C-alpha cells in the first residue's frame, strides 16, 4: 500500500515547476508617478490596484473610525454626482471600483473594459479627488458601520480578535479595531472625515500596479490623469510596536455550543534574513492546509475541530505568529493542550527533513500559481512594492526557498517558537478553561 505512494512521490519530485512567464515592467509617468505593469492583451480589460500606506492607523487621537468611514464614503458621491448618480455612471459602463481600508492602508481596486477606459478613469479620478461626503451619505454609511460594530460585539471570533489586539499592541493604533467604537463613530463629523481624507490619500504614500489590456505609454498617461493632482503629502505614519505576549489563557464567556480560540506570540520581520525559514516553519506547523502538524494532530487524529491554522503575519509596524480554531466547549481544553504540545515539540525537536522537503515543493510549486488573472496580478504587484521587493523578485524567490536547510529551519524553530509565551484567547463557555493570572 505504501510502496505505490512512494513511487508516485518520487516521480513527482523530478519535475520542478518553472516560473510562469510573468514580465513586470516598471513604469514612471511623465509626471513622475511610479507603477508596475504586467501587460496582457488576451482579454479586453484592465485591472488596477492602488494602495495608500497608513490606513486606519492614521486616525487622529479621539477620531477612531474616521479613515474607515471615509474610505467607505469615497464611492458615495463625487463632483456633481450624488451617491446614486455615481453608482449609475459606474454601472452604465460596467466598471468595478472597490475602496477599502485596514490597519496599513487605504486600497482602491478597479477594473474596466478597454472600450470604456477613458470614461471609467475620469469617474475614478472624480472619486479620488472630489469626494462629496454628503451629509445624507455620511449618516447612511455611519448606520451601516454602527451595525457592523454591533454585529462584531456578538461574534465570538471578532471578540477574540479585539482581545488579542488590545493585549498584543496596547496603546498603538493596532491595539483597537479600525472600525472604531459605537461612541467614537457616532461623534465623527464631516470635518473629521475630510481630515482623514487629506491625511491618508496623498502621493507620498502611494503604490500602484496594473495588469491587462494596457500599454506602458497608456498607463503613464493614465497615472498622471488619475493621481497627479492628489496632495503631495499626508499625515505622519505611526511608529513600530513590539508585540506583547505573556503566555497563559484569557477566557471570556459567550453563549453557544462552541468556543472561538485565537492563539498568538511574536512573529518575524519581513526584512529578517530568517523570514523565509520562518515561513517554511509556519507552513509545516499550521499554514499548509490539510497537511500541517496542527491539522493532523487536532483534526486528523482527534477530530477536535473542523479546522485549525496558523499564520505568520508581517504588518507594516508589527509581526505576529497567530492561529485560530473553533471547537466544541467540551473539547476546548484538550485542543489547547494539543496545540501547546505541538508548539513545545517543534521548539525542542524541530521538524523533519521530509516535512521540509514537502513544504519546499509546496511553496515553490504554489508560487507561480498565484499569478493567475489580471486582478490577482495587480494585487500581488502592489504588495511586492510595499514590501520593498525588486520587480525581478518572482524570478529569484523560489531559489531563496530552495536554499533553506533543515539546520536553518530548526535553528529558527528553537528561537521563534515560544511555548511559554504562546497566549490563548478563548471566547465561549469552554469546560475547564479559565483565565490565568
Amino acid at each position, binding site marked *: *500500500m505504501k510502496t*505505490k*505512494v512512494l513511487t*508516485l*512521490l518520487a516521480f*513527482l519530485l523530478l*519535475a520542478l*515547476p*518553472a516560473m*510562469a512567464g510573468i514580465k513586470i515592467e516598471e513604469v514612471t509617468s511623465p509626471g513622475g508617478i511610479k507603477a508596475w505593469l504586467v501587460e496582457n492583451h488576451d*482579454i479586453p*480589460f484592465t*485591472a488596477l490596484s492602488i494602495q495608500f500606506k497608513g490606513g486606519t492607523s492614521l486616525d487622529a487621537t479621539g477620531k477612531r473610525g474616521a479613515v474607515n468611514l471615509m474610505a*467607505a464614503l469615497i464611492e*458615495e458621491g463625487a463632483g456633481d454626482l450624488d*451617491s*446614486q448618480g*455615481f*453608482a*449609475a455612471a459606474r*454601472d*452604465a459602463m*460596467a466598471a468595478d471600483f472597490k475602496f477599502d481600508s485596514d490597519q496599513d492602508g487605504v486600497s482602491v481596486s478597479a477594473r474596466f*473594459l478597454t472600450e470604456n477606459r477613458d470614461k471609467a478613469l475620469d469617474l475614478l479620478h472624480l472619486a479620488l479627488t472630489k469626494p462629496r461626503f454628503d451629509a445624507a451619505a455620511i449618516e*447612511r454609511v455611519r*448606520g*451601516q458601520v*454602527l*451595525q*457592523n460594530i*454591533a*454585529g*462584531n460585539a*456578538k461574534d*465570538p471570533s471578532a471578540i477574540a480578535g479585539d482581545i488579542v489586539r488590545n493585549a498584543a499592541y496596547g496603546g498603538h493604533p493596532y491595539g483597537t479595531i479600525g472600525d472604531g467604537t459605537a461612541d467614537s463613530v457616532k461623534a465623527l463629523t464631516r470635518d473629521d472625515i475630510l481630515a482623514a481624507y487629506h491625511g491618508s490619500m496623498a502621493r507620498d504614500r502611494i503604490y500602484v500596479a496594473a495588469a491587462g489590456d494596457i500599454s506602458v505609454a497608456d498607463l503613464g498617461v493614465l497615472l498622471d490623469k488619475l493621481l497627479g493632482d492628489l496632495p503631495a503629502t499626508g499625515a505622519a505614519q505611526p511608529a513600530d510596536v513590539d508585540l506583547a505576549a505573556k503566555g497563559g489563557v484569557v477566557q471570556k464567556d459567550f*453563549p453557544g*455550543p*462552541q468556543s472561538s480560540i485565537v492563539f498568538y506570540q511574536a512573529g518575524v520581520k519581513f526584512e529578517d534574513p530568517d523570514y523565509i525559514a520562518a515561513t517554511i516553519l509556519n507552513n509545516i506547523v499550521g499554514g*499548509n*492546509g*490539510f*497537511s500541517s502538524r496542527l491539522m493532523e494532530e487536532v483534526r*486528523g487524529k*482527534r*477530530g477536535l*475541530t*473542523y479546522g485549525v491554522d496558523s499564520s505568520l503575519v508581517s504588518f507594516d509596524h508589527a509581526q505576529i505568529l497567530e492561529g485560530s480554531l473553533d471547537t*466544541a466547549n467540551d*473539547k476546548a481544553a484538550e485542543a489547547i493542550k494539543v496545540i501547546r504540545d505541538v508548539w513545545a515539540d517543534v521548539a525542542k525537536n524541530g521538524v523533519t527533513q521530509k516535512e521540509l522537503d*514537502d513544504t519546499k515543493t*509546496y*511553496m515553490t*510549486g*504554489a508560487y*507561480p*500559481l498565484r*499569478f*493567475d*488573472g489580471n*486582478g490577482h496580478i495587480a494585487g500581488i504587484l502592489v504588495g511586492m512594492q510595499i514590501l520593498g521587493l525588486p520587480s525581478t523578485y518572482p524570478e529569484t524567490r523560489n531559489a531563496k526557498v530552495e536554499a533553506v536547510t533543515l539546520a536553518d529551519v530548526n535553528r529558527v524553530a528553537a528561537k521563534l517558537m515560544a511555548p511559554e509565551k504562546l497566549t490563548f484567547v478563548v471566547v465561549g463557555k469552554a469546560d475547564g478553561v479559565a483565565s490565568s493570572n
Partner: protein
Amino acid sequence: MISTFGLKMLCRAAAALLMVGTAFADTVSSFKLDNGMDVVVIEDHRTAVVVHMVWYKIGAADESPGHSGIAHFLEHLMFQGTKDVAPGDLSKMVAAQGGSDNAFTTQDYTAYFQRVASDRLDLVMKLESDRMHNLDLSQKNVDTELKVILDERNQRIDSDPGSLFTEQMGAAQYMNQPYGVPVIGWRHEMETLTRQDALDFYAANYAPNNAILVVAGDVKPDDVLALAQKYYGPIPPSDKIHSRVRPTEPPQLAERRLTMADQRVAQPYVVRSYLAPERNAGDQKEAAVLTMLAQLLGGNRSTSVMAKALEFGQKIATYTSAQYDGLSIDKTTFGLVVVPADGVSLDAAEKAMDAVVAKFIKDGVDPAEFARIKAQVSAKQVYDRDNTQGLAHQYGMALASGLSVKDVQDWPGLLQAVTPEEVIAEAKTELDRKHAVTGWLTTEEAAQ
C-alpha cells in the same frame, strides 16, 4: 459603502446572482467517454495552471429519509484513503506539488477539485480516478471524521443564529421536496451515520456514468481527452445509476410565517422566500426573467428598487437584497431581505418591502437601470474569462444541475433578451405569498 454585512440566504450553497455563462464558446470543448462520463475542457493559456474537477450528480437531496448528511459525510470520507493511497495522502501529494484541493456538497451535486501547475494534471487525474472506485475506509477514520462533521455543524450552523434560521426557513419552504433538509444534515441523524451507510451511498452513486469531468486552464482538449481515457476510461459504468426523480412540491396554498429569537442576534432582519421555477435544459426563459427581476429589485446597493426606496428614500433599512439562483434540479426560491434601520420594527420593514414591490409592479421597470444591468451582464462575460476556476465552476454546476454546455452558452443571450414587460408579468405571478415563507430573525429582547 460598507459591504461586509453578510446574510446567508436559504438552504443551498451560496452562488453569485448572475450566474452567467460564457459566450466565448471557442475556448470550451466537450466529450463523452465510452463509459458515459462527460468531459468539459476550458482553455486559458495565459498561466501554466490547471483546475481539475469531478462533479458527481448526487447531492443531499438524493439521500434516503433518516440519513440526512450522508452525501456530505461521504465527501469527507473520500479523503480517507483507497487501496493504494493512505488516508490524507491525496491532499498531501497535491500540496507537495504546490497545489490545493478541496470538495463541496450541495443539495444537487458533490464536487472534488484540485488546482495545480498544468504539467501535474496527470497526477491529480490519477488520484481522483482512483478514489472513484477504490475507496477503502477504516472504522477508526470513519469515527474520527464523524466528529469532524459534527464540529463542522457546530461551527457553521449551531453557532450562528442566522444559519439556524436559514435551516428553519428551508424546512418551512419545502413541504415535500427534500431541499427542506439541510445539506450538512440534522444533528440527531448525523450522529447515527455509519461506515456502511457511507459505503452503500458510494456504491450506489459514484461511477463514471454519474460524473462530469471539468478541466480548465493551460491544457489542450485532445491531451485532456487522452488522459481522461487513460484514467477514467477503464472504470466500468454502474447499472444502478438512474435519472434523479425526487418528490416534488404539491401546490402551496397557504402563506407560512416564522419568528425566531436568539440572544446572539445582533441585527434583526426579515426574509421573504417565494417558491420559484428553476433553469431547465432547453427551457431557461422564465429563470432568465426571474434573474433580471432579482437584479432590478435588489441587485444593486445604490440603484436597485429596494435600495432606492428603503435605504435612500425612506431611510428605514440599512441593507436590502433580492436573491435568485436558477441553478437547481427542482423548484428553487426567490428571496427578499430587509435589515431595518435602528428603531424600525420588523413589521414596519416588511410592510415597506411589500409596498415597494407593489409599487414596482404598478410603475414598471426603470429603463436606465435595466440598461445598466444588461451592460453588466455583457461585461461579465469579459471579466469572467479572467477567472478560469470560476468558469470551470460555472460549467460544473450547470451540468451537474441537468443543463448542457449549450444551455450555459445560451444564458447570457437569454438575459439580454428579457423585456421589461416580461419582468413585470413574472413579478405579478411569482411574488405570491401563498407559496412564500416570511421569516423574522430577532433578538430575544425584541421578541419579549
